[in-house]
């Protein structure tokens, strides 16, 4: 906060002087009076550690934080299998990092309990991994089937992500589901059927998908602060500047422009040539007339010299100017301008 008694706004584009000597300031309030020299190793050591503590004028304000503990089994839970690449990691174009065989679903406690009961005394009957994969496939196929049906019937995008649409299992018939399971996850018929029934039952009880990704997003008008991640309409500002499109037409247009510009360049070159030739013509005519005049009026003895000069000039490559015209006549004096005169006057009152 500015302690100055004059609250004048600061102009950001104004060049401000950098003052090194604080005695020049109107007031040195709030600034250290004397250079502070630290010969203290302890003080210097203090300053080396990155600080989270701000030593404010009000007093030292320490911001405490809750505790951290190391996980004992980390070294074996996470295995050192990563190999670093020389190049920066980038996703595959279009596909990104989506792995089609990665089983997105994870068994929760209810699933684990059912599985344990189902397996009973035969723990090998159905493995957790296979169960997980089957549930995942059921979820994804069901969502795809629902989406397909709704799109075909012309449903709006909003309807397709509604709670009802996400919750329904009506669009994937039992046969289709079992068929799909047979193709993707090898397991005995009875097991597949049982898993399907379990999944169906669970969906009916929950009234929503098992996988978070497939669940309906919170409706925008839901005010409950405990519900999160509502989809937001991004405000579309139409471009006010004319947009440059990047397609075939504009390429053609640019090609045309290029041709035109090159042709114009040729035309200008011809123009320049023509004007030069005209200028040279004028010079030559001037020379010729001068020569004729001199021949008529000059005395005999100088005749030969004059003729030699002009002959040389005629043979010269680039006649700059006609002979005797190296210096142009003095330019006319600048026109007087009352206003300019007045501005330039020295004894103007300030």
């Amino acid at each position: 906060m500015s302690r100055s008694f004059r609250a004048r706004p600061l102009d950001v584009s104004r060049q401000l002087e950098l003052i090194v000597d604080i005695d020049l300031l109107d007031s040195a309030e709030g600034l250290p009076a004397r250079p502070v020299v630290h010969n203290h190793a302890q003080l210097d050591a203090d300053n080396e550690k990155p600080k989270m503590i701000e030593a404010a004028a009000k007093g030292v304000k320490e911001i405490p934080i809750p505790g951290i503990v190391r996980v004992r089994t980390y070294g074996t839970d996470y295995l050192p299998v990563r190999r670093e690449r020389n190049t920066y990691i980038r996703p595959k174009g279009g596909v990104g990092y989506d792995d089609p065989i990665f089983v997105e679903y994870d068994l929760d406690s209810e699933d684990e309990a059912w599985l344990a009961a189902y397996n009973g005394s035969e723990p090998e009957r159905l493995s957790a991994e296979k169960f997980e994969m089957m549930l995942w496939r059921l979820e994804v196929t069901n969502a795809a089937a629902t989406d397909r049906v709704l799109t075909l019937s012309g449903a709006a995008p909003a309807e397709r992500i509604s709670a009802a649409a996400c919750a329904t299992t009506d669009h994937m018939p039992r046969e289709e589901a079992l068929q799909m399971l047979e193709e993707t996850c090898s397991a005995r018929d009875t097991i597949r059927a049982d898993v399907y029934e379990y999944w169906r039952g669970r969906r009916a009880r929950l009234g929503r998908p098992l996988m978070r990704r497939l669940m309906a997003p919170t409706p925008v008008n839901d005010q409950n602060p405990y519900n999160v991640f509502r989809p937001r309409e991004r405000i579309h500002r139409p471009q006010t500047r004319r947009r440059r499109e990047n397609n075939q037409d504009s390429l053609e247009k640019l090609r045309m422009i290029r041709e035109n510009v090159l042709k114009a360049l040729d035309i200008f070159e011809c123009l320049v040539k023509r004007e030069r030739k005209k200028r040279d013509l004028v010079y030559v005519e001037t020379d010729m007339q001068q020569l004729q005049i001199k021949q008529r009026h000059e005395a005999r003895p100088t005749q030969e010299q004059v003729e030699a000069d002009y002959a040389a000039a005629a043979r010269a490559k680039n006649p700059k100017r006609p002979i005797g015209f190296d210096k142009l006549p003095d330019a006319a004096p600048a026109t007087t301008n009352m206003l300019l005169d007045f501005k330039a006057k020295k004894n103007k009152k300030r």
Partner: protein
Amino acid sequence: MVRLPLEVSTHLECKWRDGKFYPARIIERRKVDGTADEYEYYVHYRKFNRRMDEWVALENFNLDTVCPPEPPEPGDGGRTRGQKRKVDDDHSEEEGEGHEDFDPQQLREHEEFTKVKNIEKIELGRFEMETWYYSPFPPEYRDCKKLYFCEYDLQFFKHRHQMLRHLRKVKLLHPPGTEIYRNGNISMFEVDGRKAKTYCQNLCYLAKLFLDHKTLYYDVDLFLFYVMCECDERGAHAVGYFSKEKASEEGFNLACILTLPAYQRRGYGKFLISFSYELSKIEGKVGTPERPLSDLGLVSYRSHWTRVLLNILKTSEGTISIKDLSDMTMFKTDDIISTLQHLNMIQYMKGQHVICAAPHVIEEHLRKCGSAGLEVDPTKIVWCPFDARADYQIVRG
């Protein structure tokens, strides 16, 4: 004689983990599992930020200091004047905790629904951390006290064995985004909220545990997440991040910023702030963090602005304008002015504004800032500004 159980809103002194007693207020209470009438109490320490709020047993209290809440007046549905005043007092005591920018009504509502931490501890990779604030996890996780996060895709689980089973499936050992910076073992990944929605939502759930005023009200599609990782033979481990709107109307170059508690005090927060401005430099646009800033955030930003500006002033001569400083640093002129004023370096000479650039003043302020944290090497950034328009086209079709 104090009547038990204690009422919510009671003020009294409570013993903290350092053994000392601090003034506190009871926010909630619940019966202890397996007992008939024993209660535990959720307290807020009045001098500390809400992140220190916790469940404590009755024995932690100094019952001599109990100051019961005023009983509600009959016919007055909610708060009495007395209670309202007390609440305001509490807030005014917590001035400087980062609440000033808030509308008091909104603040009360926010605190009301986030008043009690749900998850108390989490396990993420190498560390188990205590949480700081409430985070709105899906309903089935509401009664959970500890969550286990998979370190790579930030998926969360109620039981450790479930997390481990999931972990065995995971093949992607880094955030699902583009690596835009690599220097030594530190990498930055840019993750698009639209393309990697689940990851970003998980990240938000996780981050909310440590950020008070972050809101998860809207979805992550419109944001980019810049995740900072320490890399080793086990993969890229997220240590912090900042989020940024794809197209910010107010010129914010950063929405939320967090260094996970287990990795604090390594200069990573300062790194993230610097990085956000490096991106602004590449974009050619000035930027500023979204307000309100948390208490830790404000300290870090002040320190960063001070350090960068003073290092420029140290080597400058003659004159300089605020606009010049803005062009060099991509800081907003408002931020520059407020920083310099806070340091009393905007002064007057003969009635005109000047900047005090006395070496001893500069050195003193720089000393107080501490180190520059982990520095960003701009030559190692491989990034081009996000094309929000093209992204919008894809979404709209």
